[in-house]
């Protein structure tokens, strides 16, 4: 069945309209409706967060097929485990945590397959391959170097750096997704920054994270 259109579009003769589940609904409203069996609310939650989940999985894994599998698994786990979500308002953070957890599992599987010589996957969504047409040859070369540096990085630092500097997450949201404290995420990002800047020259819109910056330390 195709993904139902949002109610704004469904208010036409071609579609269906379920009132009270509109784009203005909060995640908490939609989670409650999904628990009660409302398929439209579930579709709305997917529509709202799928792009972020798929982008995060693709940036981290560098492969479209793997990223689609992870996005699929993450939504299935989320939709079938909603009873475990303690605060409905935190659906997005919880979903991203599931996503990153699934990505890390995929990394471990890939590592094992590589050791056994069985990894047949193709990296078809690296940063260099995903560069927009307007990106120059020099910058593409920098992106290739960046891909190589990220590949050699510990998984946690790589994920922290990608969430922060590729996808533009705030440190708190990246910390939530990786299920660590703000201090830890800043330390990982700073460490990753040091590795990246040793090989790649990037302009910095974000201030570099320094471990000492963490004035607020909380376990998420």
């Amino acid at each position, binding site marked *: *069945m*195709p*993904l*139902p*259109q949002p109610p704004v*579009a*469904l208010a036409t*003769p*071609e*579609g*269906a*309209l*379920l*009132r*009270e589940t509109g*784009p203005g609904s909060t995640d908490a409203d939609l989670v409650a409706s999904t628990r*009660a*069996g*409302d*398929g*439209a609310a579930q*579709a709305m939650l997917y*529509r709202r967060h*799928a*792009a*972020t989940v*798929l*982008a995060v999985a*693709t940036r981290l894994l560098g492969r479209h097929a793997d*990223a*689609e599998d992870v*996005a*699929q698994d993450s*939504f*299935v786990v989320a*939709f*079938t485990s909603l009873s475990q979500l303690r605060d409905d308002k935190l659906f997005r953070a919880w979903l991203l945590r599931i996503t990153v957890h699934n990505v890390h599992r995929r990394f471990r599987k890939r590592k094992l397959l590589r050791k056994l010589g069985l990894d047949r996957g193709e990296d078809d*969504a690296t*940063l260099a391959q*995903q*560069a*927009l047409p307007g*990106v*120059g040859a*020099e*910058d593409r070369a*920098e*992106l290739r170097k960046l891909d190589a540096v990220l590949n050699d990085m510990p998984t946690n630092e790589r994920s922290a750096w990608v969430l*922060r*500097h*590729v*996808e*533009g997450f*705030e440190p708190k*949201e990246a910390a939530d997704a990786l299920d660590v404290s703000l201090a830890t995420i800043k330390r990982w990002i700073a460490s990753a920054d040091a590795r990246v800047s040793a090989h790649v*020259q*990037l*302009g910095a*819109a*974000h201030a570099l994270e320094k471990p000492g910056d963490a004035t607020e330390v909380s376990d998420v």
Partner: protein
Amino acid sequence: MSELRKPLRDSLRDPATHARLDAVWQRVETRVTGRRQNEIGKPLLIAFLIAATAALIVLMPKRATAPGPIASHHLAAPAAVASALTLSDGQAIAELAVANDGAERALTLSDGSRVSLTPGTRVRPLSSTPEALVLEVAEGRARFEVGPQGGRAFRVRADQLEVSVVGTGFSVAIEGDQVHVEVQHGRVRVRGPNVPGGEVLLSAAQTLSVRSARPVEPAAAPAAVPWPKRRP
């Protein structure tokens, strides 16, 4: 120094294309629906196994000690089965209709449930057994006040929609190329090919309107509706 600026996604293609998002959604929906059906099926299987085991425990010793025909009092009494619904005067439920120029008509069924038909409405029974009453709203608007049915299912169909009832008041209407289900009180489950997600649970004061399957028109292309912008 490179021209690249953080966040780098501003210099990268968005991997979340409509086609990929829709493809993932198809697989998510299939798996989530499958799991729910398994969750529903497991308790039924367990209940069946428990009942079968209990039946074996009851019947086996008697067979060992008293061979021959089993006396009727050794058999479990048949479960109480509700009788098929009729009209309140005992007549079988036949096609109910009110002409366009007629007056609104209200009928009471044998269990006290009520069906009200507005002018220009035709309702016909598709099935009436002790296990289920299935009515079809062929045209017009009908309102239902349904009491608890015990083990009997009470379902109303309209076009390709099916509304399953558990003690509730609701109306079903066919207007042009739209089918409307409105719940006054209680809850109903609505299934159909044009229902978002295939099935929704409607509560009091909620209305579901779906396109009728009768005029065959292609559905709106999903890509026509923009996906929400990503955060951050």
